[in-house]
């Protein structure tokens, strides 16, 4: 056990050593590590509008199987200084007919909210989002109409998804074309 200060009679002043310049924050160092080790599935790509800002980026998912095959969906990620204690904020920027994504782009994915843990990484979220397109989950709906159709009539759901991706109305809602 060390005795911390040779404290006796030692006044402190702030003038001593020169500063090394402002250090990067722990959130910043952690996101650099996360990004450097992104291991993206082949259907996903990330885009950094400003490479100096690793805290803000887009994820593009282009599913190659399932209901959403052929579509192209853009998600925005905003990572705060609380990361990884707090999860990043993720929004879907592409309007999509999906039980777990509402028309404002809010995403219902457990690890983005109630099940987030600091050991999870950006990669975990990428895989979570990709899975939402392979297995939309009608049990946890955000877009309840879409969920009800998926539960009652898979065939109709499939048609609605194709129609929305080509650009068209489902009920009164117009979806922009998002085919690749």
């Amino acid at each position, binding site marked *: 056990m060390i005795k*911390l200060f040779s404290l006796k009679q030692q006044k402190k002043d702030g003038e001593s050593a020169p*500063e090394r310049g402002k250090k990067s924050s*722990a959130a910043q160092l952690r996101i650099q*590590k996360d990004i*450097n080790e*992104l291991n993206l599935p082949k259907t996903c790509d990330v885009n950094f509008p400003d490479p*100096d800002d690793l805290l803000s980026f887009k994820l593009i998912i282009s599913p190659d199987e399932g209901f959403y095959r052929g579509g192209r969906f853009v998600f925005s990620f905003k990572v705060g*200084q609380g990361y990884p204690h707090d999860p990043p904020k993720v929004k879907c920027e592409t309007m999509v007919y999906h039980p*777990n994504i509402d028309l404002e782009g809010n995403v219902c994915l457990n690890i983005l909210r109630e099940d987030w843990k600091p050991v999870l990484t950006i990669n975990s979220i990428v895989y979570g989002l990709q899975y939402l397109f392979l297995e939309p989950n009608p049990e946890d709906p955000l877009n309840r109409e879409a969920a009800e159709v998926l539960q009652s009539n898979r065939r109709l759901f499939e048609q609605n998804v194709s129609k929305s991706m080509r650009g068209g109305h489902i009920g009164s809602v117009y979806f922009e074309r998002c085919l690749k």
Partner: protein
Amino acid sequence: MAVTWSGRWNHVRKVTERTGPFAHPDFEPSTETLQFLQEVCHILVIGAGGLGCELLKDLALLGIRNIDVIDMDTIDVSNLNRQFLFRPKDVGKTKAETAANFINLRIPGCNVTAHFAKIQDFDASFYRKFHIIVCGLDSIIARRWINGMLISMLSYEDGELDQSSIIPMVDGGTEGFKGNARVILPGMTACVDCTLDLYPPQVNFPLCTIAHTPRLPEHCIEYVRILLWPKEEPFGAGVAIDGDDPAHVSWILEKSQERANEYNISGITYRLTQGVVKRIIPAVASTNAVIAAACATEVFKLATSCCQPLNNYMNFTDIEGVYTYTFEAEKKDDCVACSQKPQNISFCESDKLQDILTYLLESTTYQMKSPSITTAINGKNRTLYMQSVKSIEEKTRANLKKSLAELELCSGQELYVADPTTPSSLTFILQMGTKME
């Protein structure tokens, strides 16, 4: 005014002028210890809220006179039940100044200096003035910031930590009837980031519950906060919710009530609405008092060596009876904040970024696979090179051909390198001039 009187410090001298079985091995009973506490020892208290008021009072009564306090808040009427240095006439004044004035008047000889500011407003030259820093904060971001600051102030000689560069951090936290106190010796023991898992996560309800199956009044308020506000933008486009703006809270309250009525949920009040919006956890005065007392005791132990400090994390709850548990939180080998000692690397101004990259890839010490290199210049982060992400690689590839001078990198600049071969990113300090062999 007489600054002291006979017997005033007897309670402290009993511990500083006699030894005991728990004393630090190097402790020598002496009258100089009290003198040190009173005249030399300089303590920083971060936060002048529930914990901060208690801490200031405790430290001052232990004989510490040179205290600085930082707080960025002003006094709200709801603080008065537990933040006992404040009176109704003080509502609206700054917490830091009001608390400092109160202590200075009430405890003769005490010299508390107030800073109505954010911790981020100060740099290392400010924090270096203090022997010990004690925190009574309610924000993890602020804790991590000060933790990172103290770690960045450590100096190493030949890879050995210079112990005189350590400023111990004593950290207290409370949430209702639960609390904890801990001692962090930056660079030596577990830091805030080592134990990020120990901080309770924010309560987040599943979005689908909020959207479609609300059962609690909180679900209704969260619905309005998360889903309705961005959609309706009641106070204009892009206006964020301000939990202290009565107009904002009233709007949320009204919409939440409408939603609660739809689902036959009761219990929505203004207070609850503001609590959910501001994520307030009810503060309990007695928990604050216990945790602050534990923290002040640790400050006293560290400053006097009269006793071994807490090793290093104490949990406390008084939900049913009183329970405490102390354990040694472990320093993590891959902690992003404290795991690595900054290492020097030497290059010339005319060397290219490619030369640094090649060195990281080929040197026998590192043998990295796909390192990314970032730095911070004037507080702004810069990505110098990252191979693994195509969009960044394309935009930073040109940097490889630039000289270090062209990239505005000078001696002493920190470079942060992440690579799959290392558990955490490494910090290098650039030494300009002599070429490394």
